[in-house]
């Protein structure tokens, strides 16, 4: 992530600019970009997200780390989740989605939209798969709990 992008995201996180303004600024940094800069940003307070400066890192794994305390989960002792998924498996999994029949894809899209996930599975084609994975490689989401809530969530590629 380059310095300009970081500054924009920090301003967004600090509430100095709106998400729309941040999107415009990020788009201005990459005039050749056709995708929306906010495609992979989270709406959770305290989260940072965005694509990198176009440098291909060729990350091998997607990592998801979660640490939650007893107050958050209601369980005894801390709860931790540490998942590492090979990017190759993600690619294979998305390709496998092509086996979902069209009718089922439509139902899946409807169900996802109903639950607030604006994802259209039927639009994920092999030709834009690589672009999707490339964007995912630059994804970083950090969420820290507030008000005494010690929950931490990190999603990143390595």
């Amino acid at each position, binding site marked *: 992530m380059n310095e300009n992008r970081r500054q924009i995201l920090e301003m967004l996180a600090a509430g100095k600019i709106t998400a729309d303004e941040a999107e415009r600024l990020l788009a201005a940094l990459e005039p050749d970009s056709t995708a929306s800069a906010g495609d992979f940003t989270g709406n959770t307070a305290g989260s940072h997200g965005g694509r990198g400066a176009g440098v291909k890192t060729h990350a091998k794994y997607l990592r998801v780390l979660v640490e939650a305390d007893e107050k958050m989960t209601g*369980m005894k002792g801390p709860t*931790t*989740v540490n*998942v*590492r998924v*090979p990017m190759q498996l993600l690619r294979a999994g998305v390709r496998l989605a*092509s086996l979902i*029949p069209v009718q089922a894809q439509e139902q899946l899209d409807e169900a996802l939209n109903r639950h607030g996930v604006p994802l259209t599975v039927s639009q994920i084609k092999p030709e834009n798969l690589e672009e999707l994975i490339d964007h995912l490689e630059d994804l970083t989401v950090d969420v820290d709990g507030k008000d005494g809530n010690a929950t931490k969530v990190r999603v990143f590629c390595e």
Partner: protein
Amino acid sequence: MIPNIAVLEIENPHYHMPRLWLPLFLLWIPLALVLILISPLLLIALLALAMLTGVSPWRIVALFWNVLSSLSGTHVHVTANGNKVLVRIL
């Protein structure tokens, strides 16, 4: 490359299973024999899936092979409520 070893560890407050290293490569040979035995059923399922999705049967086999061979490097470690589960595929 298809996964060769899986590591499994399960622990709860009352029981701690020692970490198991499962040699998956030893499973592939008997599994291949089983696949040969049930190949007529697999072929029917494959053709049905191909007709349903409009994807070539060879491509379907390739897709599943891709998933299988991409599993190496997967790591899942969950600790909750005093229980711990670790799964690693190497």
